[in-house]
């Protein structure tokens, strides 16, 4: 009960911070207030009407009921929750960057130069030839990449219908391929947790538009056969897509471009530490090899040397068009630039080194079994005959955020753990102790957990059975 301030509750009432609507709403007669003819307006509008002091307290309290990377370790495997440097916020807050996307190129040379610089950084880091910054998240980057592959095949006069994806891949890979109109060919994981090259060979053929791969994969294992894998896919006329969610493990040690990947996305809110508070926004720039650059989304940014202006936007010759209404998530992109600039070659390389060291050190300290190895920045521990989700709730009891649970499926009762480089040895020891103690707790204790949190265990199945998705819906049950 350490951080329990004299609290905001009143005995006998709902113990939580009330909804804004419960604090008082007001109905405005819009017909009366509006200069428009009544036929064009709504009748009235009812919304909460707190004063600024009340708004401040409401959201301050809500924030205090929320775990964050600034609260402590957040080792969600595959999510790469690392420390978000504060100064990148200040860089992004520059009012000179707050421009409208329809400004003339000539009038936003600063913005374009910064973005062009970021395109170059990302190309160098990924070993790619050209990079678009438009996709607003990793999944949008995947969609962009697969659309590029599709456009490429179509231009080759080559209709292909399948995308091959290892079973251990992230859900977005499957959903993306389906959204782009492809059939998904799911590749079961090999014995060693990696791609089974023979199975791949069998699955790939003239219908194969692309293979989507994460490397290291979702339990941190490097696909050692990547050169062979690339050959198989390329020989069949397919393309290799790299899911950049795990790039943090590779920085300075390997580049997708050098491994034979043709298209990739970067998860800047993972690898490059831009905050994505509560689940977003992110950005998912996409890199391609030279051959695919003509398909990039429009507008693309390039340097011009005709002396008039320094940078311009243009539509690549066979552009796939657009995946975002404008130019993507600007505020995230500028933070990405600032982060990369801060670390530089040496810092990026050290980030990967420490991320991998931390994962390996943490793995040493915990009692759970880890089926495969050697892993890099994350590992899939197994809770064995315990329920991974319950063990996770048990960990809440010991003051940490638990890992991703029950995914990927290739590890039974998986606890997919990624501490990132941002944790100190002491923090990892703390995390390990939470891990071990929860794992050792008896079923009863786990079932009762958590008890020291804002809310006790929430019945999610019930919430889904009786969906109440707004304050208007409360009380309707």
């Amino acid at each position, binding site marked *: 009960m350490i951080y329990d301030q004299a609290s905001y509750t009143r005995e006998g009432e709902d113990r939580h911070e009330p909804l804004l609507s419960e604090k008082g709403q007001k109905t405005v007669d819009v017909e009366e207030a509006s200069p428009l003819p009544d036929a064009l307006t709504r009748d009235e509008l009812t919304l909460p009407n707190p004063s600024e002091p009340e708004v401040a307290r409401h959201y301050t309290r809500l924030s205090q009921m929320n*775990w964050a990377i600034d609260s402590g370790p957040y080792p969600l495997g595959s999510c790469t929750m690392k420390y978000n440097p504060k100064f990148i916020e200040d860089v992004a807050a520059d009012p000179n960057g707050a421009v409208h996307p329809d400004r003339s190129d000539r009038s936003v040379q600063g913005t374009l130069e910064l973005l062009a610089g970021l395109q170059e950084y990302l190309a160098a880091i990924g070993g790619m030839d050209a990079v678009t910054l438009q996709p607003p998240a990793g999944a949008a980057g995947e969609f962009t990449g697969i659309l590029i592959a599709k456009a490429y095949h179509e231009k080759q006069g080559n209709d292909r219908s399948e995308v091959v994806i290892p079973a251990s891949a992230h859900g977005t890979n499957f959903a993306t391929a389906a959204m782009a109109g492809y059939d998904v060919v799911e590749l079961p994981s090999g014995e060693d947790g990696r791609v089974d090259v023979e199975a791949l060979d069998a699955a790939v053929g003239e219908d194969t538009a692309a293979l989507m791969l994460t490397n290291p994969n979702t339990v941190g294992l490097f696909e050692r056969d990547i050169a062979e894998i690339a050959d198989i896919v390329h020989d069949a006329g397919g393309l290799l897509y790299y899911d950049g969610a795990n790039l943090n493990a590779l920085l300075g040690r390997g580049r997708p471009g050098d491994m034979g990947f043709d298209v990739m996305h970067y998860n800047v809110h993972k690898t490059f530490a831009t905050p994505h508070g*509560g689940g977003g926004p992110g950005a998912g720039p996409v890199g391609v090899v030279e051959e695919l650059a003509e398909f990039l989304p429009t507008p693309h940014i390039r340097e011009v040397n005709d002396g008039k202006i320094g940078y311009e936007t243009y539509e690549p010759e066979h552009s796939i068009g657009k995946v975002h209404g404008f130019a993507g998530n600007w505020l995230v992109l500028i933070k990405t630039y600032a982060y990369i600039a801060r670390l530089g070659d040496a810092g990026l390389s050290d980030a990967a080194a420490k991320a991998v060291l931390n994962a390996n050190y943490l793995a040493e300290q915990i009692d759970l079994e880890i089926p495969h190895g050697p892993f890099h920045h994350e590992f899939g521990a197994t809770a064995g005959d315990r329920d991974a989700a319950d063990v996770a709730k048990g960990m809440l009891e010991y003051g940490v955020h638990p890992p991703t649970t029950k995914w990927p499926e290739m590890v039974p009762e998986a606890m997919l753990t990624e501490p990132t480089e941002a944790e100190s040895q002491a923090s990892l020891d703390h995390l390990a102790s939470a891990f071990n103690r929860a794992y050792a707790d008896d079923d009863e204790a786990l079932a009762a957990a958590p008890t020291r949190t804002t809310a006790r265990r929430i019945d999610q199945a019930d919430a889904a059975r009786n969906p109440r998705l707004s304050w208007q819906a409360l009380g309707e049950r």
Partner: protein
Amino acid sequence: MSGSPYAPHTPAETAAMLDAVGVDDEEELFDIPEEVAFDGEFGIEPRTEREIRAECARLLARNDDLTEFLGRGHYGHYVPSVVDHLADRAEFITSYTQYQPEITQGFLQALFEYQSMLVELTGLSIANCSMYDAATALAESATLADRVRSTTGDVVLVPEQLREGKREVLTNYCDGADLTVETYPMDDGIVDVDALAERAGEDVVMIYAENPTVRGCIEEHLTAIGEVADETDALFTLGSDVVALSVLQEPASVGADVVVGEAGALGMPPAYGMGLGLFACAEEFLRQVPGRLVGAGEDAEGTRAYTLTLQTREQHIRKERATSNICTNQAWVALRAAIHAATLGPDGLVDLANDCVREAETIAAAIDDLSGASAPVHDRHHFREFAVRTDQPAAAIAGDLERKGFAVHVIGEHLLQVCVTELNAGEADALVEAFSEVL
């Protein structure tokens, strides 16, 4: 070699940890075959925090200091300072998706409140807690239509006047679902309902209309459009934004099945197009909604608690059968919009929206008074923006205006578009003056 400033390891700790792991240095931990290993350089010099702040400030200062009269889907409204201060609280901005609801009640409640505000604004009973932007929200509504409508058709009907970016994103989403995007005619900035009714039919799965339209006209035929959609069993998707929704006809009341649009009109300063996709729909599509939903439930003590819900719609559970591939979304932007809306309250919102009507009318009339231009204000009502017909080529006039410090849209050979909000209203007289000089 200096390391990452954000890795806390002292040399002694690193040594101890390497020791515990049983290796001599970190390189031993990398299992990367030599043939694909990278030992080159990116060529990126690390800079200090101070240097980067100065560098980016210097770069961005190279943007011209123009007064923007720009809109067409990306709107600048004044964001109260309290929005920044609260949304920037570390517990919000450095948090993640609420996979452990017991320790993320704060953000969940904020998103639940955001959803509720959209429910009030749209009159529809479901709102998700964000899409990327208006364009992707529109595109997602088409794939929703594809899933929920049993018409034989595969046509998505959109107005001929539509922001190009929206159409392109929509087309990309439609392609994968084997849908075709076609247009219906407009009449002086709003929907030509007769033409639409004629075009509608069995092959149409969705009809999309906007209010206000991309030209800033307030749509006058919403009920009729709703009826056309209803009769032909097409999904009626209405595009709008959170400020306009505060005063314009309630979408549910005109039969809209889905509302999409820009919710970042609240909470976000102009951000080079970064947005917040509004997505609301009718109850019946509950299990087909794309994106995240926060629901109210109970905890073990029977206390109300919030949680992400109906996750089986999502890709991390349903994979290729998910309603969308969206994962990382715009949650923090939604938080900002909610705080902004809360700060304004219904009075503030309605006032703001009314100003958008009045200011547009005033400045359009002033431009209309000039010789060499006409601004079509007399026939339609406008919200924030309006088109200006120019005698001289529009591009040249826009160029002249830019040299005088003003940015406007060029939307046709002799058409400009001007957008007014409280942010630039103070400069409106100066714009009119500049217009008078360059027309």
